[in-house]
């Protein structure tokens, strides 16, 4: 048997010796496995939905005015759908390129956490540009709105609260991890010092999500939040085309705002999941064995927040799966459905209740 053949055999023997729980744990340590799980979850959900829909009534036909209103939002839906796919693709490409093609030893690769945030930011910035330059048109027949429209008018209430909570957790994680980090000889806060008490040996210094990682990523998160806020506001405050299309346009704007919030939340979840995964690695250092010439000494290492770090490591796949589900949901809803599908359910005459006769 060749050396290569032996290596493959050892690998499979090692895999087969794991129990199912260990195997699942090993699989969940790969971020792209979270993508596969999310795809499976969504495929299952899609099958159930299709089975239910086949028993439901067909949707009403689209009215002429609703169709024209829907047409105005077609490109915005497409931009968001492609943007959601783009975030997944950017995440996968960065993972493969960094992991298999680049040698980045001794490099503070903060961009690995910032990539999903930046790709979400680019998707929303393109949408914002489209809304400002193409999506805000002079009304054909002005309609007075009874409600004051703000950035939160069309956004999903729970989604906005969840995303705000996520931003707070991100900030708290960055600050907490930064405070416990230590600098290297070049002043980069990339280490976590884990002392071995009652010994003369140097503390262990594994790489950690310190300020060198946290600060650039949190700056990107702040930029993403700003762009999301401006996008939601621009989506809300633009005038409606006609009194007859107000309800149809409101629904389209709800969908755009919801998708924008989902993409922003998913970008943050992927970044935070990665940070938690990195922090989680630090929880595994508890025992150090130093051996020389057949003699070895075991040292107990203690880090105060080790259990917290382990918990963060377990939460990270859940965050990644949630992020991928959100992105796939947005992509499926906006790229596969007919543009007028959602809007077809409008009763145009009811739109008059929001306008002046």
């Amino acid at each position: 048997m060749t050396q290569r053949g032996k290596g493959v055999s050892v690998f499979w023997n090692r895999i087969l010796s794991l129990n199912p729980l260990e195997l699942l744990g090993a699989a969940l340590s790969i971020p792209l496995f979270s993508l596969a799980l999310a795809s499976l979850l969504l495929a299952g959900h899609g099958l159930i939905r299709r089975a239910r829909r086949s028993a439901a009534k067909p949707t009403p036909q689209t009215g002429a005015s609703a169709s024209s209103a829907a047409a105005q939002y077609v490109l915005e839906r497409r931009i968001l759908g492609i943007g959601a796919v783009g975030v997944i693709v950017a995440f996968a490409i960065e993972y493969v390129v960094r992991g298999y093609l680049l040698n980045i030893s001794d490099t503070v690769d903060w961009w690995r956490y910032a990539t999903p945030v930046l790709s979400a930011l680019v998707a929303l910035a393109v949408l914002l540009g489209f809304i400002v330059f193409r999506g805000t048109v002079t009304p054909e027949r002005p309609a007075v709105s009874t409600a004051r429209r703000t950035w939160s008018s069309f956004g999903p209430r729970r989604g906005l609260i969840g995303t705000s909570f996520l931003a707070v957790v991100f900030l708290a994680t960055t600050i907490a991890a930064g405070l416990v980090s230590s600098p290297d000889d070049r002043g980069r806060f990339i280490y976590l010092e884990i002392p071995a008490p009652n010994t003369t040996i140097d503390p262990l210094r594994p790489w950690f999500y310190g300020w060198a990682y946290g600060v650039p990523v949190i700056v990107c998160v702040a930029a993403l939040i700003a762009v999301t806020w401006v996008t939601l506001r621009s989506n809300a405050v633009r005038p409606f085309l006609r009194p007859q299309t107000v309800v149809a346009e409101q629904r389209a704007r709800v969908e755009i705002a919801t998708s924008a919030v989902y993409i922003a939340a998913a970008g943050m979840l992927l970044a935070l999941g990665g940070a938690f995964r990195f922090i989680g690695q630090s929880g595994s250092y508890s025992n150090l064995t130093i051996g020389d010439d057949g003699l070895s000494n075991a040292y107990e290492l203690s880090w105060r927040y080790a259990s917290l770090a382990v918990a963060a490591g377990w939460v990270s796949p859940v965050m990644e799966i949630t992020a991928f589900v959100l992105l796939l949901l947005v992509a499926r809803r906006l790229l596969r459905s007919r543009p007028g599908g959602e809007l077809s359910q409008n009763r145009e005459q009811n739109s008059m209740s929001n306008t002046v006769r």
Partner: protein
Amino acid sequence: MTTQPTTAAIDESSPALDIYRQFRGLIASGQLGAGERLPTVRQTASDLGVAAGTAAKAYKLLERDGLVVTRTAAGTRVADSAAVLPASVVRRIRDLVTEAEAGGANATDVIEVLRVIWQTQANTP
């Protein structure tokens, strides 16, 4: 006490007067509840494709007629005396319409059921 004819001095074809009449219609028909905030002057101007000054003039007319009250930081709100229903009730009616519409209910049926429930609850000791 009657309302002052403040609009008399304004040109009948003025866009500000049009906006004033539209909002007066919304308040009189009960579509805007007591204490409910009006859209900002900028939003109204943008929605109707007019200058912000024109929308501001319309809001001033509404204020002079006692239909709205403007307070710093609180914005422009519908005056209690001018509204048909409180803002909370109007908001719930809007939600009811949205919900009924989503469920494919008929407006006449909804109104009839509302009337029956109202009478039943009113007669319950």
